[in-house]
């Protein structure tokens, strides 16, 4: 583990990725103590102020402090997408390893269903579900977790098939090991790297997806400070008060880039070429 960390940091891109990710996670955790203002507090006397010493990043249309809002703006997004990423990695990873190891007709049939799911533009499906179940984390976490899990399943299942075809798995089967020990002892340890990297990578895509949803008005609900939502709300005044849009954009992009770089660096450190794995 320490070794992995060292290899990751030894690359500039890995160090940057880890730094950005850690920075944003820490900011999100400690935002209430760092932020100079209450992020939801409106101030009619301080509407659309340009950045100044009092308001580092200026104020928005309702006179709220943009710096405080940006600090808080990642909390919901990170919490929602991280939970969804964990769910996706767990279920997608487990199912992928299972089908890849078992193979045969069960696997073939399941993959037809998986392919069909992958053939749905997931954002549209998410929108359909939101239009039924309403916006908010309760709908979004399981849906994101499920859809990204399907994509992880596909990748992991392919990798598991390759592992399962190798002689050490055949040896375990010939020895008479049951399915679960084969999966737990022989197959899974050879796929944990892929799962880690896949999970991290999907996390960054989910952040992208969630903030897009927020932007469309289906993610975070006002007055929650959220980057995507902030951009949507302040966009109309882009020409006069660009700071209200710039800072949330900057924060969001830097976090997604950070996670992406980190996932890439972990992958390279573990000797996985993620270049051919696809982001669905």
């Amino acid at each position, binding site marked *: 583990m320490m070794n992995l960390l060292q290899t990751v940091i030894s690359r500039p891109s890995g160090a940057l990725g880890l730094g950005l990710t850690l920075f944003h996670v820490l900011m999100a955790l400690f935002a209430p103590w760092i932020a100079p203002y209450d992020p939801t507090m409106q101030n009619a006397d301080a509407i659309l102020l340009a950045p100044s010493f009092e308001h580092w990043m200026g104020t928005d249309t309702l006179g709220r402090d943009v710096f405080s809002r940006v600090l808080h703006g990642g909390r919901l997004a990170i919490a929602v997408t991280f939970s969804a990423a964990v769910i996706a990695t767990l279920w997608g990873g487990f199912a992928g390893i299972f089908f890849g190891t078992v193979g045969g007709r069960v696997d073939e049939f399941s993959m*037809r*269903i998986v*392919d*069909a799911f992958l053939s749905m*533009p997931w954002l549209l499906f998410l*929108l359909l579900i939101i*239009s039924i179940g309403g916006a908010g984390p309760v709908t979004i976490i399981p849906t994101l977790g499920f859809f990204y899990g399907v994509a992880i399943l596909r990748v992991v299942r392919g990798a598991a098939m390759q592992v399962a075809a190798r002689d050490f798995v055949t040896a375990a089967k010939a020895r008479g090991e049951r399915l679960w020990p084969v999966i737990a002892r022989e197959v899974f340890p050879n796929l944990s790297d892929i799962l880690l990297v896949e999970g991290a990578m999907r996390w960054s895509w989910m952040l992208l997806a969630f903030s897009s949803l927020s932007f469309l008005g289906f993610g975070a609900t006002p007055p929650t400070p959220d980057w995507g939502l902030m951009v949507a709300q302040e966009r109309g005044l882009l020409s006069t008060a660009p700071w209200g849009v710039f800072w949330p954009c900057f924060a969001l992009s830097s976090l997604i*880039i950070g996670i992406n770089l980190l996932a890439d660096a972990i992958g390279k450190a573990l000797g996985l070429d993620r270049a051919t794995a696809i982001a669905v």
Partner: protein
Amino acid sequence: MPTLILRRFGFAAFTIAFVSLVMFAAVEALPGNVCTSFLQRFAQGPRLERCIEQQGLDRPALVRYGDWVAGAAQGDFGYSLKKRKPVNELIWERFRNTALLGGIAALLAIPLAIFLGIAAGVRRDRPVDLSLSGAAMLAMTIPEFVTATALIYVFAILLQWFPAVTIVSPGASVLQMLPNIVLPVIVLSAVLIAHIMRMVRASVIDVMASDYVQMARLKGVPERQIIRKHVVPNAMIPALNVIALTIAWLLAGVVVVEKVFNYPGLGTLMIQAIYDRDLPMVQAVALIFSVIYVAVNLLADLAALVLDPRLRRKGH
């Protein structure tokens, strides 16, 4: 070969059937029904009855599903609750606009991305590759609405070259649409190019390391010809399916981009329908998007058949 093509068509049909079923079932699973969801607190009395009758909700679910699918196959997508019109009267112009936007973006992005991917893959780890790959990373990770906002700030607000949002009256011709689609097309293409380029690059790198490329070098084939005859066709085979899958990004991106630019396409129609809780409309648009997506994947599969003699002759 013919069985192979049939199989691909079969799978496409299966997928569409499956997707439509899931969409239908998702709506069925909701507490209440399409009408109560739309009417909310007014869901009572004659208003509700009229709605139920008009949507045919008194019939069993299976029958309604059959009707819905059969109708959709003939271009009848049901009846919009909000607009009080048949859905297909509302969508065709929107469909044209979205097709214009997506089509131009795809036509622009796919050849360019393939070219850039080959250029980067052939010059792996050299400055060209590093800068292209870095740019692709940025384009992939920065959300469309952020890119779009940045472009609007620069090109619409600072330079005033293009309109910030689409302002056309309904029934505008394709020509009238054109100046409005420049910025949306750029945003959409950037993401597409990034994804496809990365895939093509990876595939090219793979092929460049193969025995047959080494053999071609040792045969004295000039590097350009090696790339043209030996590398590109083989690198495109695995990349094709991935290109098709990135169309999913395009379709999802379309919704966001249309919203940013207030573009009168299917995406904005769907978002409005969600605001209005107009479920028949939402279902219809989602189904259309799915059909487009499946069709694109089918096209990629067929193209792979053309490119890969191994698939063609054996019938795997």
